[in-house]
């Protein structure tokens, strides 16, 4: 082949260029796969889908509560895998008017003989209501330490937005409590979760 006139010796484009572009695309798509993680969180945060409630809410204007509407807010509490705590809402449900701040408590008890730290992860249903459920104070914003045998009541302050679509009359807020290990170990880990 070497002695023949090499007709393919001068391809229209160099292979190196094509390979370079292809490899760059492959690396770019690998990065894109990871970029989907924050993109997904941002997307869920903006649209409120997936029941992910947003972080601490600061009310910008004082508006009176809408006394004409009553929304039933139900609370669920459950433990993650291998979580030994007693965890339940003090009241199973409350009736609120849109626009008024309401405080409810969750009871937590560490029945084990070791100090533990827990993290609660919220989820709201129906997801269309997520954007209209504001938490001004929540135990889920931080990790919760409890010494062995200790119990506590953890507060949640929330406001249901006056703009809540009229077809929604009931909201269900569910918390799942996860074991974050020993207090010392937990301090080394991230202490808050963005979308607490």
């Amino acid at each position, binding site marked *: 082949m*070497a002695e023949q006139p*090499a007709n393919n010796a001068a391809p229209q*484009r160099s292979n190196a260029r094509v*390979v370079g572009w292809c490899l760059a695309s492959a690396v770019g798509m690998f990065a894109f796969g990871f970029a*989907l993680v924050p993109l997904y969180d941002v997307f869920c945060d903006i649209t409120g889908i997936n029941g992910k409630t947003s972080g601490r809410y600061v009310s910008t204007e004082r508006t009176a509560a809408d006394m004409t509407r009553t929304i039933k807010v139900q609370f669920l509490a459950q433990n993650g895998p291998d979580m030994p705590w007693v965890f339940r809402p003090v009241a199973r449900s409350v009736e609120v008017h849109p626009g008024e701040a309401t405080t409810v408590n969750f009871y937590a008890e560490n029945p084990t003989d070791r100090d533990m730290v827990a993290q609660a992860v919220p989820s709201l249903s129906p997801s269309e209501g997520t954007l209209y459920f504001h938490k001004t104070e929540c135990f889920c914003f931080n990790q919760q330490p409890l010494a062995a045998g200790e119990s506590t009541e953890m507060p949640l302050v929330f406001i249901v937005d006056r703009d809540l679509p009229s077809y929604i009359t009931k909201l269900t807020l569910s918390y799942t409590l996860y074991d974050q290990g020993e207090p010392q170990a937990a301090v080394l880990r991230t202490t808050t979760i963005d979308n607490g």
Partner: protein
Amino acid sequence: MSAVADTHAQDHHHGPASGISRWLLTTNHKDIGTMYLIFSFTMFLLGGTMAMVIRAELFQPGLQIVQPEFFNQMTTMHGLIMVFGAVMPAFVGLANWMIPLMIGAPDMALPRMNNWSFWLLPCAFLILVSTLFMEGGAPNFGWTFYAPLSTTYGPPSTTFFIFAIHIMGVSSIMGAINVIATILNMRAPGMTLMKMPMFVWTWLITAFLLIAVMPVLAGVVTMMLMDINFGTSFFNAAGGGDPVLFQHVFWFFGHPEVYIMILPAFGAVSHIIPTFSRKPLFGYASMVYAVGAIAMLSFLVWAHHMFTVGVPVAGQLFFMYATLLIAVPTGVKVFNWVATMFRGSLTFETPMLFAIAFVILFSIGGFSGLMLAIAPADFQYHDTYFVVAHFHYVLVPGAIFGIFASAYFWLPKWTGHMYDETLGKTHFWLSFVGMNMAFFPMHFLGLAGMPRRIPDYALQFADFNMVSSIGAFMFGSTQLLFLLIVVKCVRGGEKASANPWEGAEGLEWTVPSPAPYHTFSTPPEVK
């Protein structure tokens, strides 16, 4: 290219080296294509054996042969081996053999990388199959390996599975780069893009899909690896992650992947139907654009696999309509194949039989896909045997029949002998009947509510399952006949001329049969 050609001439003296080093060190596209095809068929038999275990267990209700844990390993490994070990390498093998011959190139653009990308595959599958013998067993979470089933609850061998996927991904990406470089740089003078054979076109688009999505698959298994071994929480709700994210990233890869497994078959069938209809392909340009449109749309439909996870109504509507839209370019293709046959002088040699069965049965699979795409109806079909029936109808008579049709079509070119036509037709009819018997009853089972991936089922599903198992045994054992036909054809048989098919067009039919070790050292002129 010239540097490669020089070393080639010095090393090999215009012929294959002898002994095992020929196969280990070869940079010849025909050798590598052959190795890919042999590897693929080996994996097809292995994955098929696992399917036989599954069908044997489901022959009757109750647990007879295997335990549920092992059954789950079988469904998982069957899926992984068939997708990544049988179908994808078979198409890469066909690409290696046929693309240089079809575009008048002396070899692939990057012959050494070609060798490497092949030899990575046996390594990857050795690792994957070895998990069957590990403590805790092989992966048992289904081929879609949803988190947290595969992360928090996966067996210890999951890390080996992840590594095997990484190696397969590297192999596929290198194969795709090679195909793109070959097609873009090495076409014979005069062969413009719109004169390229359909098989080359479909593979070019498939290669772009591979480069776009295999890295995403590598990314998602890397996230799993980090969740399992390095304490991250990509998919772990306890640490702020989200298991649903896994499904989004996986199906962003997964949906284009199903087109990766079918587009090259579209291409091959677009050669076979015109050949045996003795007419040129109807609507060549629309075929090219249809494949391009399918490839583009494949990136916008991934969430139709996830309607039941709680996608908002607007999202369900978007993904439903986008999915239904794919039926348009696919319909164009089916119409063109039928129009090609219309008023043609048809003969029904084995490749044509497989190609016609491809068109009909793939359309059935397409229709059940449309049923699944309808979001409100999908809530009933989701994760039932209806889904199993659907994707087996697009993959078995789609991808696999496409590969069989291609193999029979080009065997005379590869071996220099005609295959045994009687045995070939027997293979077709047994496969056709067996396949339909195995998979058609699954539609009814799914609609009646039988869930997928279970080793045992309620009594009312017994009869259809027995029919399905008998069909599966028939289809499975028939594939040994294919092995016999190929071995017989390699060893001897009626001599094949350069163009053994009366109506075949294309550069590959201008070289002698069997194709010499080196072809198109001087590029042909394309008018």
